[in-house]
């Protein structure tokens, strides 16, 4: 028995050590990335928790701009000059378009805060993301990926999440043209573009987003929100529901483009 008790005691010690540090959810969040929409923020206990992973899914490639803009706006709302790290692969520019700084300026964000990191392949993207989340002092780290991203398995996701927790950075995973999969994310969202509030002469208005909370570690999921972005107030607000918009429950079928590109 003496031989086996030694490893057993070692294992117990290891478990005790692990329990002391705890999982990503054991520590209260250090702060929140708030959207500025009171009902939305209070429903999540303050907003998107800092030091955690949040996933934004755009099932259809055409909703990619909406999902990306939502993530960027939530991060750029934070005051100060701290940089926002945006990681993507080089071919993303051809697929979904290049990030257009004047467009970000038009939304009221400061494009000078953006630090764009473009890697050759998804493997390098993951390696750079691991370094980026471990670097404190960023507003958020946005990792944009296209399609299934098989390299981002549970181990890789947990490694990223632990890195973000230790450094206190917020990781926003932007999954374009991808279906939600199990992960260690704190919240998981599905974002699609919503019909905008009409301006005079039938002109399209401010950006509008349909959000669905697919998963939340801190409480029940399944809430839906329709928000639009008020760039003068730098806050999200309720989108005006006119009679002309589609009902919220109408789930969109996957567009031919998404199927073709996947």
């Amino acid at each position, binding site marked *: 028995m003496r031989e086996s008790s030694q490893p057993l005691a070692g294992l117990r010690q290891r478990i005790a050590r692990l329990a002391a540090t705890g999982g990503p959810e054991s520590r209260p969040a250090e702060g929140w990335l708030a959207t500025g929409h009171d009902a939305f923020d209070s429903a999540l206990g303050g907003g998107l928790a800092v030091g955690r992973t949040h996933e934004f899914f755009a099932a259809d490639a055409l909703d*990619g*701009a909406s999902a990306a803009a939502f993530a960027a706006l939530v991060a750029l709302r934070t005051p100060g000059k701290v940089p926002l790290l945006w990681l993507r692969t080089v071919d993303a520019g051809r697929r979904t*378009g290049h*990030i257009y700084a*004047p467009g970000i300026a038009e939304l*009221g964000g400061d494009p000078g805060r953006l*630090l764009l990191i473009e890697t050759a392949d998804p493997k390098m993207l993951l390696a750079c993301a691991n370094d980026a989340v471990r670097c404190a*002092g960023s507003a958020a780290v946005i990792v944009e990926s296209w399609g299934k991203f098989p390299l981002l398995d549970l181990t890789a996701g947990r490694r990223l999440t632990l890195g973000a927790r230790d450094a206190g950075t917020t990781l926003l995973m932007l999954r374009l043209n991808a279906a939600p999969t199990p992960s260690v994310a704190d919240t998981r969202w599905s974002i699609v573009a*919503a019909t905008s509030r009409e301006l005079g002469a039938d002109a*399209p208005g401010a950006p509008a987003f349909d959000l669905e909370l697919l998963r939340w570690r801190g409480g029940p999921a399944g809430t839906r929100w329709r928000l639009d972005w008020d760039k003068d107030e730098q806050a999200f607000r309720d989108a005006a529901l006119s009679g002309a918009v589609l009902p919220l429950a109408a789930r969109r079928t996957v567009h031919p483009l998404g199927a073709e590109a996947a």
Partner: protein
Amino acid sequence: MPLADARAQVPDLAIVPHDPVLDQNWLDRLAQGCARYTPLVALDSPDGLILDITGCTHLFDGEAGLIDDIDRRLTRLGMTLRHALGPTADAARALARYQTRPAPDEATAIRRLPVTALELEAEAATALVRAGLKTIGDLAARPMANIAARFGADAATALRRLLGDAPSPLDPRITPPPIATERRFAEPVASMPHATRILTELVGEAIAALTERGKGGRHFRATFFRSDGLARSIAVETGHPTRDSSLVMRLFAERMDGLRDPLDPGFGFDMMRLAVPRLEALAATQLKLEGGEVRAAAMTELVDRLATRIGRGGVRKFAAVDTHIPEQAQLALPAIDAPPPTSWPAPEPGEPPLRPFYLFDPPQVIEVIAEVPDGPPHRFRWRRATHAIRRYEGPERIASEWWRRKDNTGLTRDYYRVEDNRGRRYWLFRHGLYDEKPDPRWYIHGLFA
């Protein structure tokens, strides 16, 4: 001689196509390898190297020892060598290329060179020979004014350079860095871990030199000289001047891990050199108690590390450009150069965003149903899907920059902000007005949030 004739004379002739770019690269690599003899190495394309060995010969037991060493290494690389020493770069070059008869000393050797060594144009060279002037010595005996009058000013200049009367400046391939440290080994170093340890020592010495001067390095270049005569350089850059040797070594480790063809010691390195080509003032600093500096420093280090790993163009920051051509309105500059912050045009309050979040560059062609000549689009087909347009705003007319182009051939673009019936917002434009072009095409230029 044509290839067919050559083949007829020598049936088993080996034929290799001439590749000037590869030759140039090879010459460049040889020049890099010759940096072990002197920091001043100049290329004499397509097949020559000029080394300024002033004050360097004692390291190799005199001129003969130096030439022996060069000869040995280059012969091992399969090169056939012709060399000469001269008082000026031009004289040495002419002696190496044109000397046919031995001479007791350099001055006589130069005087015995044929006039072709002046490398004049064919006409002037023929004129010289016709005049009975066959060697440089013949020419040098004549008054310089007569030569210039009869054979052109070029001939006089070339002659004066050859004789050392006019300066013949050298254009070195590498300018000597302000700080350089090096190690030469009696026994070649064949293991990479050992080489890395020596590199750490070299970085330590360079940092000490930087500290003395009150400067920090922005650019560090390590050169590994292999015993077979070739050399390989590895450089790292930092976004801010630094004197942190552990940071520099981390960047070097990152760089070496990411090399496509790893550093190969071969039969060993017999010399290593660390140069700091770019210095900037760096005062001694004290950390602030609040810790804000530490965070900014961590971000700078992250930029350095990622730029070393994926290339300096991989990590970029945006800068505004004052133009109304949409695809030229932004520049993405390497973040490691720390581009100065630019001011972006403030958006009009109360207006929706007029520029897209994602931009396609180049714009993508779409098929559009629109009123002719300049009506708004009604539906469009892009990437094999049809989108019906519910709302639109436009046109926003953007003309080509006629004040920049003389021939003003650019077409006017009519931009429309449109929303389809699913709520997605696009930026479309018609390239050309109907009076500019008979059948203008439509493009999608961006996606709004």
